């Protein structure tokens, strides 16, 4: 069934009028179609109004019965994606065609999508933030699953500190994604800042949220002709130009 055909099913879906197999196909489509998701959410809110219009006052005994059952029913835990497998700490080296690792990272990136919105959180309200996070998650997913995605793993910080990170670049997406299971903790007032290396000129590419361990960050700005990326320690809020020596420089594979 084509996308347009599936799109026409939004009404039937929200009215609960699809057979189980069509419902599953539509939900799969829904995951990739933001316009459909918005429409379906509105339609479901509309169906909810139809249900409210036939609301009935339940028998008084029902509440006690339900509360008693609830007290004995174990709740499902929140759905948590397992983090990506830890990449071994190693000197910077290019890894080509690491599709399996990328797929695993993709799962983690989707789960951690909210993290990527951090750098915008002060300026935007929660709604925009959620949309931003969704857009970033989609962009992150696009980079990680791009046919030309390349991963570079590098050590971060001095010996003994044990930090490491992966950067995935895609020229077709013109973006880079930075993944790390955790960077060494910084004194308060300091933050990690990411940079694109444009032939030796460092271009700001966003800050790393403090405190969080697993990080999946879409670098701000286009990949363009950047030759690599760097990480520096900057005052909170970031800098326009690096003010300290980079704790890591990771070269990108050539386009």
């Amino acid at each position, binding site marked *: 069934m084509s996308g347009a055909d599936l799109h026409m099913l939004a009404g039937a879906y929200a009215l609960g009028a699809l057979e189980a197999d069509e419902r599953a196909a539509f939900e799969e489509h829904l995951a990739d179609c933001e316009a459909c998701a918005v429409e379906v959410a509105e339609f*479901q809110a509309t169906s909810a109004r139809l249900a409210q219009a036939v609301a009935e*006052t*339940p028998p008084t005994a029902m509440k006690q019965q*339900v*509360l008693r059952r609830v007290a004995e029913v174990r*709740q499902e835990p929140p759905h948590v994606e397992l983090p990506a497998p830890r990449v071994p700490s190693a000197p910077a080296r290019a890894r080509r065609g690491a599709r399996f690792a990328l797929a695993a990272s993709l799962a983690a990136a989707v789960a951690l999508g909210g993290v990527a919105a951090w750098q915008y959180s002060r300026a935007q309200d929660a709604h925009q933030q959620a949309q931003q996070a969704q857009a970033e998650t989609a962009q992150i997913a696009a980079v990680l699953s791009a046919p030309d995605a390349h991963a570079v793993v590098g050590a971060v910080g001095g010996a003994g500190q044990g930090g490491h990170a992966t950067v995935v670049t895609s020229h077709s997406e013109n973006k880079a994604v930075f993944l790390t299971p955790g960077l060494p903790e910084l004194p308060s007032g300091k933050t990690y800042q990411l940079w694109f290396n444009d032939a030796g000129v460092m271009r700001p590419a966003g800050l790393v949220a403090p405190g969080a361990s697993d990080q999946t960050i879409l670098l701000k700005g286009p990949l363009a002709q950047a030759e690599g990326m760097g990480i520096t320690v900057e005052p909170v809020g970031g800098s326009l130009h690096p003010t300290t020596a980079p704790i890591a420089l990771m070269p990108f594979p050539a386009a």
Partner: protein
Amino acid sequence: MDAGPADRASPEARGCGYTVDGPHSRRGDGSEPTFLGTPPVPGQRPEDLLVQVARGNQDAFAALYEHIAGPVLGIVRSVLRDPAQSEEVAQEVLVEVWRTAARFRPDKGGALAWVLTIAHRRAVDRVRSAQAATDREHKAALLDQTPAYDEVSEAVDHRLEREHVRRCLQALTRTQRESVVLAYYRGLTYREVAELLAVPLGTVKARMRDGLIRMRDCLGVTA
């Protein structure tokens, strides 16, 4: 039997400012899709309660119950008809809400929409599994267009909402209204609706979508 082109909105039309600006349209007035007459208490919106329920808060569930039990029972009863079976399924739905509350995503829609989607699905599952054994009974009975809201006692809290929805349903074209009512209030699939109304499948799909677009705009629903 249909109105003309106004009855058909292409998928793209929505993005081009297509609205049905009927006399009852009040889209964008920020009305809460909860019980009229029950002003929302901060921290007591169904969405907030459901988030607390996901953390195992039974008091929050008891408060949420007051918001959802009536509509859950109502829609289940509308689809199933049998009062005893409806109460049983409604209870199962309410327990399922407790059990699976962690799946609720506030950014994907409201709590009532989430709960009532579960309720409708469970009612329909029950009907369809029962019908897999016996053949569907008298289709003539299903053609009875009287929406279920005519048959239930009118609690004061729900009367305004009921009136509003009724007015909006009446503003639909006949095929739109029949498609929406048969699917949602009676639990039919769109194939069954198409057969019952003797119209092509594609027409029914389109009418369901157009009908919901008009209902959405008439009711002033925002996701």
